[in-house]
């Protein structure tokens, strides 16, 4: 991240050396390119073709043009999944702020910081099956969270069974399960903030808050961008496991995200063609973010 050095080409050599360099470069990059093209790009194009058919079950399906997409436009479940996605993306600042704040606090020497740093990463090592099973029990109407809240006189809330709280609960659990990773990235970024800059700010009488705002945050900007992009991809593609275990997409469609809808259409509904159409929409959505990402990332790498 944050490459600022300008690129110096390798020293000029003869044409032979340069053609050799070219040859080796292609050889080196080929395995990566081949794998990505064969297992990701080709299936993507194939999926687009599939989305133009009415494939159902084992039958191949005839070409039906963009009918699947027209049906998507009328499918209320799909609309709901899109609305949920937008809500999810709207929570992005929290996904960035929480780990950033914790990282800054640890960096500023909160007592026990080293211990927190070790422990906070722990949930990130667990698979979603594990995380889901645990929160399934904790968040139930008669679960431990409600029992705990009752001590403060707060009545039971059906966290996962109520349309108002289900998606937010899901988001909170996923945040809990992943914040450790972002936190470590922020900590890493903070270690590059020159401490004399902070000292200087101190000497000038800046408060802790001012130091955050004027010194630390600007230095962290590339890290914030990086975490934002990685998190966005994560929440759009990696919440499937949790949804399955915690809410099964309900109540109603309140926790149905596109990736979950794809799964239902493929499985219970047995409609690969229609599922492919949802996939393509999800891909386009992500490609929009990809555009921003590639710009940010390649700017930082200076390729």
């Amino acid at each position: 991240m944050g490459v600022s050095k300008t690129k110096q080409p390798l020293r000029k050599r003869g044409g032979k050396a340069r053609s050799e360099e070219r040859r080796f470069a292609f050889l080196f990059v080929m395995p990566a390119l081949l794998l990505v093209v064969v297992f990701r790009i080709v299936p993507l194009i194939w999926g687009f073709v599939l989305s133009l058919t009415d494939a159902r079950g084992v039958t191949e399906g005839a070409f039906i043009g963009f009918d699947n997409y027209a049906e998507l436009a009328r499918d209320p479940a799909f609309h709901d999944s899109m609305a949920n996605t937008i809500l999810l993306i709207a929570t992005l600042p929290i996904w960035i702020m929480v780990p950033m704040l914790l990282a800054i606090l640890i960096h500023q020497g909160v007592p026990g910081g080293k211990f927190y740093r070790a422990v906070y990463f722990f949930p990130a090592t667990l698979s979603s099956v594990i995380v889901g099973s645990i929160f399934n029990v904790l968040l139930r109407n008669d679960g431990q969270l409600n029992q705990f809240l009752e001590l403060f006189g707060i009545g039971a809330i059906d966290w996962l069974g109520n349309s108002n709280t289900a998606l937010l609960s899901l988001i909170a659990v996923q945040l809990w399960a992943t914040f450790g990773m972002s936190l470590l990235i922020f900590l890493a970024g903070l270690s590059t903030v020159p401490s004399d800059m902070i000292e200087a700010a101190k000497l000038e009488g800046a408060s802790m808050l001012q130091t955050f705002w004027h010194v630390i945050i600007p230095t962290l900007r590339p890290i914030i961008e990086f975490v934002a992009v990685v998190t966005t991809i994560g929440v759009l593609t990696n919440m499937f496991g949790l949804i399955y275990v915690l809410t099964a997409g309900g109540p109603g469609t309140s926790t149905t995200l596109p990736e979950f809808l794809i799964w239902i259409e493929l499985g219970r509904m047995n409609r690969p063609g229609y599922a492919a159409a949802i996939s393509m929409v999800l891909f386009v959505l992500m490609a929009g973010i990809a555009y921003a990402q590639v710009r940010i990332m390649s700017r930082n790498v200076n390729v």
Partner: protein
Amino acid sequence: MSEFTVGKRQRRLLWGISVPMALIALTCVYPVFFALNNALKSNREYILDRFGIVSEPTFQNFVQAWTRSNLSEYFFNSVVVTVLSVLALIIVSSLAGFALAVLRFPLRKLIFVVILASLMIPVQVVLVPFYKTIIGLGLLNTRAGLILSYTAFFLPFSVYLMTSFYSGLPRELVEAARIDGAKLTQVWWHVMLPMGMPALITLGILNTLYCWNDILISLLVLQDNRTLMVGIAALRGEYTTNVPLLTAGIVLAAAPIVILYLVFQRKIVSGIAVGAVKG
């Protein structure tokens, strides 16, 4: 970690902040207690008393998960697949990172963008075609197929990280080696690999996590001879989710990762620091 002098008032403030942070830390270690507590219960005890602390610990669940539910076989499978996938990822991404960051060749930028863009193609989006590709290549139900799939799916991020890391290395290193008449393969082996070690360790650890915990890709590619996480997921039956059996499986599956994490904790933290930030 850079510390600087803080006032007494701020010190007290930091202590105050430490309290909620300790609560968060508590939630992070809670799963260990949860899993062990339930794994030691019999199913009957669990049904009758879900929240209480185990009264008659039994290791029956571990035995059953390990033997009858085939977890021992699956465990071996997971280890083989994870280790080889991570090795492949390290080699492929450091080669590609070297080329993309240091060497000059046509279409470099395009290739980099293609690899990065594929980060946006999650497995759900390409489920059916990806599966057909695996079948078409004769890789269904082979470990090699799963290893290639893992390498392909976790590669874009790794390539990005290595490119980023290598582009920050002083290029005099490469220059010097080349003047000594070293071939580029030797430069990679003798210079780039050792120099890239901090970032490679980070990649190794992250990819170990991803491969070990993956369910979806493994479900599709290895349908007969399972990996561990799929075996665990299968313990959630249609009707009978035997929670103690499930948590026993979970403990067995998570143990290696947790141990790995505890052992390499310092390396992970500093590894991510160099890998993700320096560059």
